[in-house]
């Protein structure tokens, strides 16, 4: 057996499984393996000499109390979180966490509302074409009344009217859908059909408002 094999035997040796005579013969003639064996045995002795800690005297008493508590306490409403995170929560901790979550949610909502308003304003001011889904890609609703509008006016914005007023833009209403209407707009510049529904307002520049006229959708 080579030195690697002997060292494996030394590693596996224990009081229940002492090293064999063959290994002992090798150790007597091999200083490296002898040193390895001595170090390993010394380390084992050091480890097995470590004092063992004892459970406290009241271990059983405390355990009984814990078992009794576990049997009488109802399951925590936060059991799923406790399982997930591997710790328990008191009612106070849970309430504090929920309050913190509520504050964060409110803050996030407020932030996004303000961001949306700013975005709307900038779109209007820069006269950016409206972003609406082309009707050709949308399933047309069946029940609402449909009105077709044809215009070549540059699209300013499809938005709620108050936002336009807030942005100091004087819009001209080209078409406005009631809650029961859907209307489609053909934009000649872009060459596509857009659909607006449920109270949406289609605005164009004031000067071109007269260019809007009802038309048959099929004639586009």
């Amino acid at each position, binding site marked *: 057996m080579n030195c690697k094999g002997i060292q494996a035997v030394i*590693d*596996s040796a*224990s009081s*229940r499984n002492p090293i064999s005579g063959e290994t002992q013969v090798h150790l007597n003639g091999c200083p490296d393996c002898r040193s390895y064996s001595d*170090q*390993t045995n*010394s*380390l*084992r002795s*050091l*480890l*097995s000499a*470590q*004092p*063992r*800690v*004892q*459970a*406290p005297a009241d*271990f*059983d008493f*405390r*355990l009984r109390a*814990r*078992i009794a508590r*576990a049997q009488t306490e109802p399951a925590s409403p936060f059991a799923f979180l406790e399982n997930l*995170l*591997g*710790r328990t929560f008191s009612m106070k901790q849970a309430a504090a966490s929920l309050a913190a979550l509520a504050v964060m949610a409110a803050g996030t909502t407020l932030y996004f509302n303000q961001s949306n308003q700013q975005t709307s304003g900038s779109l209007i001011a820069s006269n950016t074409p409206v972003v609406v889904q082309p009707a050709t890609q949308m399933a047309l609703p069946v029940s609402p009344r449909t009105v077709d509008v044809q215009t070549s006016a540059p699209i300013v914005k499809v938005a709620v009217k108050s936002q336009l007023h807030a942005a100091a833009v004087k819009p001209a209403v080209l078409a406005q859908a009631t809650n029961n209407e859907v209307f489609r707009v053909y934009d000649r510049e872009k060459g596509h059909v857009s659909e607006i529904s449920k109270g949406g307002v289609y605005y164009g520049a004031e000067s071109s408002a007269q260019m809007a006229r009802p038309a048959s959708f099929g004639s586009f």
Partner: protein
Amino acid sequence: MATLTLSAGLRDAELETDSPVLAVEPSSEVPVEKMDDHSLLAATLTGDEAAFKELVRRYQNQITNYVYRMLDDYDRAVDLAQETFLRVYTSAERYQATYSFSTYIYRIAHNLAISELRQRKRRKLMQFPMFFSDKDSDEVEIEIEDQRQVLADDSMIAAQQREAVTKAIASLPEKYRAALVLCDIEEKSYEEISEVLDLPVGTVKSRINRARNLLKDKLKDYI
């Protein structure tokens, strides 16, 4: 005399097996001190408090010691040892007798200790996010000074040596630590360790050797 069947899997220890269930006949005539572990657990299921108390007596020190070596925190070790017994008590009917009771209870304790170590690691990462690291090791670098020259008293030398060994064990990566503690401190066989850690015997041997080599280096002044 009622026959009690111990069956089902172990949720906490995550032991899965298709082996047949064991039928155990608890005997009220045999004193609890002479009953084997399986019989004690079976008796516990029938409401025999003395049987459970005997199980606790047999294993409380072993489990506390094992968890202590894993965590290096006595109070938490006692707490988790109690949690281990609580789970044994409340899940007794799910005990699968394929494994020895010793393996079963060590496995629960091991899982709790590992869970605790992971929570600590998470907490530490949350406190010091700038030290996030992808290194595949939780080994802690420690400096173990040999103070034997300056310690006059033998008992002080022994105490200092114990402390050095404790620190060295605690600094090992948890996967090596568990295998080493079970082998060289708890004196479990490779097969038992393999069952507790749910690892092949070859992996257990290699982890123990790796742990010993690390310790030889850390404790070179003492061996």
